[in-house]
């Protein structure tokens, strides 16, 4: 019997026939309620599955298994870190949010190394995407400034991808701000050289301002105008150092244009406020910045130093208590508690923090130094911790001196301050640790402990500041240095 041909148009079903083979219905081959004859029904129940399709399943399953592996090993941890970072950002804890993104970058780099070693280095196997980097850079811009974020992008992002939708959306504004700053700075340096002056203080202020305005332009971006005002403030700082009000005026205009450049503002404004004695705007800027980044350490430190300048010790202590909220047992916290209490004259209270600082941080400090000596790479957090602890160690030494424990101070500073700073810079190839404050405290302790060889070694790195020299010559006392704040480098 030939197979029934399916009609190519819809026709009502003729229930007298089996729709499959066209066999007429009769009692022998049909059950009462069956649509098909029994032979067709048997055949329809025994159809064979197309087994070659299983290869499609194997292929797709392989892709899925690989994706599941990637998800578990990499994407779920990265997504979790991204969510945590955004949550911290929402809570205005920008440094911690930044650390999470740093962890993402490190994780991706580590997995990329593993895969590249096996599969080759021509391709980038695992890396953070444009949006992840964009969020990272945005946090940097909120923590520091647009121009710092621009500098970070230039060091992080390859030259051949500096165009396109994602670059223009997430990175271009910061790079532009960075370019504006350095271009204006470079043009101004060329101008200074063209005037032939040997010292910046010999510049004509009005001519310099006119030049800066001519290079800025009326349609410049807010950041470019901000940098122009900052340059003018810097020129005023050099040309008329006795006229701090003029400097402050330009700084205030600068802050209005770009509040994210608060670090540049605070740095110069600290000097101007010390001269004028008016810290009102300074404190307001500090408070505004802290609202957007609750753990902005550098701003807290500026505020505490400003309060110390005004001899408002109790206010400085309450700022330090606020600072402690996100910086419990950190070197900076201990340093400021020692400094503020010393300046207040309460040496015994300050000394309590020497033991607390040693107990909390000296082991980690030593471990990081050991890693640096062994030329192992250290994280940015460890680098920052080391430098902060170095500063804290100086105050620990200073308090030992104030308590007449000269030999203990000398041993402590000799090992944990001078040697650590010297060898860190030597191994890491930096010059950031061996600074004036290290030289000052080391020369002071070495001279008081009568170790001329040590003092000679320290002086090979630089001469101590005038205040230290005056103290060693007997013109001022240790109390004048540390309690009255004559040691400006500490």
């Amino acid at each position, binding site marked *: 019997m030939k197979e029934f041909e399916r009609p190519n148009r819809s026709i009502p079903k003729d229930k007298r026939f089996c729709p499959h083979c066209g066999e007429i219905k009769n009692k022998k081959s049909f059950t009462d309620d069956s649509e098909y004859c029994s032979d067709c029904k048997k055949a329809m129940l025994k159809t064979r599955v*197309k087994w070659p399709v299983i290869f499609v399943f194997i292929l797709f399953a392989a892709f899925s298994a690989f994706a599941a592996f990637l998800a578990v090993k990499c994407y779920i941890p990265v997504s979790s870190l991204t969510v945590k970072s955004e949550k911290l950002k929402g809570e205005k804890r920008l440094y911690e949010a930044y650390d999470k993104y740093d962890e993402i970058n490190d994780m991706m780099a580590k997995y990329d190394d593993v895969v590249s070693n096996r599969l080759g280095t021509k391709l980038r196997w695992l890396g953070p995407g444009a949006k992840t980097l964009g969020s990272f850079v945005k946090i940097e811009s909120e923590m520091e400034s647009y121009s710092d974020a621009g500098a970070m992008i230039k060091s992080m992002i390859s030259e051949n991808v500096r165009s396109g939708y994602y670059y223009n959306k997430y990175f271009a504004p910061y790079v532009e701000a960075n370019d504006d700053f350095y271009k204006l700075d470079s043009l101004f340096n060329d101008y200074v050289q063209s005037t032939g002056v040997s010292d910046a203080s010999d510049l004509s202020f009005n001519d310099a301002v006119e030049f800066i305005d001519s290079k800025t332009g009326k349609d410049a971006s807010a950041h470019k105008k901000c940098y122009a005002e900052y340059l003018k403030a810097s020129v005023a700082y050099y040309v008329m150092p006795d006229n701090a009000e003029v400097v402050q005026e330009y700084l205030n205009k600068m802050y209005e244009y770009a509040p994210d450049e608060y670090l540049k503002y605070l740095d110069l404004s600290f000097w101007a406020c010390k001269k004028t004695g008016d810290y009102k705007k300074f404190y307001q800027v500090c408070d505004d910045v802290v609202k957007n980044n609750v753990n902005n350490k550098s701003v807290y430190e500026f505020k505490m130093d400003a309060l110390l300048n005004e001899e408002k010790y109790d206010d400085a202590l309450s700022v330090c208590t606020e600072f402690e909220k996100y910086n419990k047992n950190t070197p900076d916290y201990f340093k400021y508690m020692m400094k503020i209490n010393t300046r207040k004259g309460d040496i015994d209270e300050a000394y309590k923090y020497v033991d607390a600082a040693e107990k909390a941080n000296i082991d980690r400090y030593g471990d990081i130094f050991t890693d640096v000596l062994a030329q192992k790479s250290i994280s940015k957090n460890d680098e920052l911790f080391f430098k902060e602890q170095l500063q804290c160690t100086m105050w620990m030494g200073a308090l030992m001196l104030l308590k007449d424990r000269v030999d203990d101070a000398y041993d402590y500073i000799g090992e944990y301050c001078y040697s650590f700073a010297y060898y860190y810079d030597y191994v890491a190839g930096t010059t950031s640790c061996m600074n004036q404050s290290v030289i000052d405290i080391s020369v002071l302790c070495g001279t008081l402990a009568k170790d001329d060889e040590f003092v000679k070694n320290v002086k090979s790195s630089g001469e101590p500041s005038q205040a230290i020299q005056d103290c060693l010559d007997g013109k001022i006392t240790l109390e004048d240095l540390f309690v009255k704040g004559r040691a400006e480098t500490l």
Partner: protein
Amino acid sequence: MTIIYLISKLLTYPAALLKAFWEHCLLKMLKVAVNDTRYMQKNEMCGHVEHELTETALKSFFYCFLQGIPNFLLSLPALFVSVSNIVFFGITPHDMTSGKVSAMFILSIVLYYVGISLWCNKSPLYEDALNMWELIYVEKKLSMPLRVLFFIPSVLIMAGSFLERYGISLFLYTAATAVLALIV
């Protein structure tokens, strides 16, 4: 609309083939008669297996529900990785930090194709879904607790079948991914 449906099946050919394969396996397990074993046809049966309508409500539900599970499970990891890369992380053809060609971008596109193909081929034929709905909720051939238990999956199956019937699902999900990638 059949043209759009056929285009979507052609674009997701391997997954459509796989879907029909699962349907056929399930029909054999549930002892349902199969009329036509051709998996790909030039009509609305493309990607499905022509068969007798299931008679019992429970059989109908399990047939509609279970056939999509393998493709659904296979699609999840591929979609998670590819959509994360494309929408949330913003993976670009060239890696931003090294400038090299990004293998993860190429892999994301492949995984997205695998994932979206599987995702858009997991629902039963609309007629089967309607048959299931009629048996369970119109003719009420199941007890109340089972009707309540199967309600949400049944609604999802109906919606999925409707979208797949007119080939809307593939274009809808792809467009949604593109929009999310731009706005997130």
